[in-house]
């Protein structure tokens, strides 16, 4: 039987004839019997309607923030998603295209990514940015690996324990392979990274996240100072914070990197999101990932092209600056669309609204002590903060019964974090939603 994805039933016979074959089987003659398989252990192909039925059933078995009030964050944020974004991403010209290796027929993707690079530079106040990475975790890894290439004589990396635990876990994996020594920095009573243990002269890099995983905005000026000759790396997991907070670029950081999911990408159970990576011009040729550059065509008109690919694996192979090939181009396009819609005013308004609503909620929650307690009541936070609680997972389960996804239990993230609930607030949360959480916590905590 023919399948709906397969053109040309009659074609099959005609091609066999053309090739002088009786059966397609003959084309596989070079494959030895010992590695052959019989029928695959899978069901028969399903009709579209049947696939739809099955997947809808599975989808319905998940609870979403669409049905409940949500304060979930911890690396994945629920900001407004303009309808235009998905309309653009649904253009087959974008989503069914390959990497723009033939620039003459890929100017759409190339120009959009050039715009993405520009947005990253503007948000981070850094001069160069790449065409995207997989996610925040691998962006941090690439930053550290770049630092190690730039300071080949050093092996130590001072990394805040308050970068997102998944980022830290990923960094540990890669650092081990790269034979880098990770020195994990604890935090102080204000929920900020303790910088006192940094020895910059031995280090390839100093890595902090701001706002950090407990929501506290780090003192980037102090971090930069403490980094000395080592590369200073700011990690950003909540990218919309860049609309309100002075970025690493302003403090002279060497790398600002992280994840842009917060600018309108759906959570999608953790991916695909999109990593970003911005750095100084002098490190350009040590940068990881693809770069889109501006040039001219044979008629002298402006055009865009993948460039500096001598850094990349397909040219440089074992000596490449990164092994990345497929990146997260379509997600970068999505973020580019959202940033274009938000524009100058929207980027700041969105950040300010998220911050103001979080401040409102923080203030109201402060009154519930000692049932729940703000971990760092005096520290500056952007839109997320830690509520101390002994049994956060139980507390969240009770809130969920009332239709509130109250936040993320730190126990879900890492054992070394203080027990409690990370509460994230965005411009989408209404005052009434905040009040509902306060009320429920007052009763249930």
């Amino acid at each position, binding site marked *: 039987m023919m399948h709906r994805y397969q053109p040309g039933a009659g074609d099959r016979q005609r091609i066999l004839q053309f090739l002088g074959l009786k059966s397609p089987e003959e084309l596989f003659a070079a494959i030895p019997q010992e*590695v052959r398989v019989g029928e695959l252990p899978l069901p028969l192909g399903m009709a579209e309607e049947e696939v739809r039925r099955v997947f809808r059933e599975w989808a319905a078995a998940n609870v979403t923030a669409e049905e409940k009030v949500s304060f979930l964050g911890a690396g994945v944020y629920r900001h407004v998603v303009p309808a235009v974004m998905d309309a653009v991403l649904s253009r087959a010209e974008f989503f069914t295209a390959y990497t723009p290796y033939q620039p003459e*027929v890929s100017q759409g993707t190339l120009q959009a990514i050039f715009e993405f690079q520009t947005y990253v530079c503007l948000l981070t106040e850094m001069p160069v940015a790449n065409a995207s990475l997989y996610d925040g975790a691998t962006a941090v890894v690439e930053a550290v690996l770049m630092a190690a290439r730039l300071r080949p004589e050093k092996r130590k990396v001072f990394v805040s324990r308050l970068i997102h635990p998944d980022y830290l876990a990923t960094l540990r*994996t890669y650092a081990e392979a790269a034979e880098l020594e990770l020195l994990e920095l604890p935090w102080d009573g204000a929920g900020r990274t303790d910088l006192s243990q940094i020895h910059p002269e031995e280090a390839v890099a100093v890595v902090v996240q701001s706002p950090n995983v407990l929501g506290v905005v780090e003192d980037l000026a102090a971090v930069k100072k403490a980094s000395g000759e080592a590369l200073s790396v700011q990690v950003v997991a909540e990218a919309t914070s860049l609309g309100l907070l002075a970025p690493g670029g302003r403090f002279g950081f060497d790398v600002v990197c992280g994840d842009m999911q917060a600018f309108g990408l759906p959570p999608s159970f953790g991916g695909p999101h999109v990593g970003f990576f911005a750095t100084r011009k002098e490190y*350009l040729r040590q940068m990881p990932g693809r770069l889109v550059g501006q040039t001219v065509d044979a008629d002298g008109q402006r055009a865009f092209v993948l460039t500096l690919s001598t850094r990349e694996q397909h040219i440089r192979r074992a000596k490449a600056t990164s092994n990345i090939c497929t990146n997260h181009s379509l997600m970068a396009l999505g973020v580019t669309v959202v940033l274009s819609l938000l524009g100058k005013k929207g980027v700041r308004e969105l950040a300010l609204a998220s911050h103001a609503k979080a401040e409102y909620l923080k203030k109201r929650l402060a009154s519930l002590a000692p049932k729940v307690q703000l971990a760092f009541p005096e520290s500056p936070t952007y839109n997320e903060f830690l509520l101390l609680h002994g049994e956060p997972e139980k507390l969240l389960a009770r809130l969920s019964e009332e239709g509130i996804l109250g936040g993320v239990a730190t126990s879900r993230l890492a054992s070394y974090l203080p027990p409690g609930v990370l509460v994230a607030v965005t411009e989408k949360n209404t005052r009434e939603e905040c009040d509902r959480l306060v009320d429920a916590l007052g009763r249930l905590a």
Partner: protein
Amino acid sequence: AREALIFERSTPGTVGYQLPAFDVEPVDPAKTLGAELVRGEIADLPEVSEVEVVRHFHRLSQWNYAVDEGLYPLGSCTMKYNPRINEELARLSGFAQVHPLQPESEVQGALRLMWELEQALIGITGMARVTLQPAAGAHGELAGMLMIRKALEDRGEGRRTVLIPDSAHGTNPASAVFAGFKVKEIASTSAGTLDVDALRRELESGDVAALMITVPNTLGVFEPEIAKAAAMLHEKGAFLYMDGANLNAFVGVASPGKMGADALHINLHKTFSTPHGGGGPGAGPVAVSRLLEPYLPVPVVEKRQGVFTLDYDRPKSIGKVRSFYGNFGIMVRALAYILSLGRNGLKAMTEAAVLNANYLRRALAEHYHLPYQSPTLHEVVFDDSRQKPFGVSNIDIAKRLLDYGFHAPTVSFPLIVHGALMIEPTDSESLAELEAFVEAMKAIAQEARENPELLKTAPHTTPVRRLDEVRAARQPILRWYPQGAESP
């Protein structure tokens, strides 16, 4: 007409979005955060209305070639049709709007989907288990090599050499190095395949950690001695890493498990048809043998008494290779593709892919030179040696194809073929489309003889003409600056 950069379309005071009502007390961020932590509006962000954004990206999209336009014969990239139902399903609120850190009890559907996909991939590859975490093929290679490294360490072995055939993708050596190995290249045989004798010699050093090999290789040739190579490696305590970029050639026909692979990454965006998105996101699950199973990244999804759970308690795990669980949205699409086709359809697609490639091979053989004569599966590599005498290179041929309304083949590798034209039509193409492509290639071969200048200056009908790539690299301009502003 060219479309300006979005930054150049800005008109002060214009807005493209309205946020939900601001319903709390205003705060002064200089007070709540401290003035030194706060920035103002970002001066150079654009101010454009919604319709201008829509038109901007609409116009940009029109300059892209895409699978929906026609044949996209990029060898090794498997540019097949991306079914629309998969896009619909990935956007279901119950998938797209699920947060990765919700309690497991609230995400049973998502966990089940991952579990089902792993089972399907196990069934297809004949391997023991699969991690879905890697975000792309190269990422999967790295994860696989890290598992091999960890397994060796576990045995107390410090082996550091990874053997890679000279026909390999560039990601293979790069990934091996990022996993902390040294790479040693092995020359291919005159048939374009693995030189098993060379492998045997290399294994004698005792330092060989693994062989990384693509099956079928980048010429489209199946490695006839792959099982033998695996046995040799295993005998010497080394591992077989298989690059699954070309898996589309043999799904339902042969299995990496039977070939003796220890690790194999699977590009969901190739074989299982998730859209390439202009360069991603893809997904690069890694299937492993029992030997490597303990080293899989955390978490893995387990099914216990009918309940799905994320297992982090795996003491030998290499840890994590990225945040959360992988590109879930891509997994949805891939599993939908697998279930839509089923065991019968998947095999039919493999046959179609191989039939189509062999049609092109035969139809073009009198016009282009075939450097290797071995039978090929899903792709075929020609070179430009018949056109070179006229001063025409593979690049020129590729550019000229754009004028004929087709995408170009891959021209950058395999490195063992100089002036390569690596053509992979995939299973999506009808004979009519293939015939049109053959006509174009024939016409170009004739043009190469009769009017080579036409090819050397191609393309002529595309939105832009051939680019000055040297200038792009020598004087890199990687972002927009406002007029008058200096690039710092």
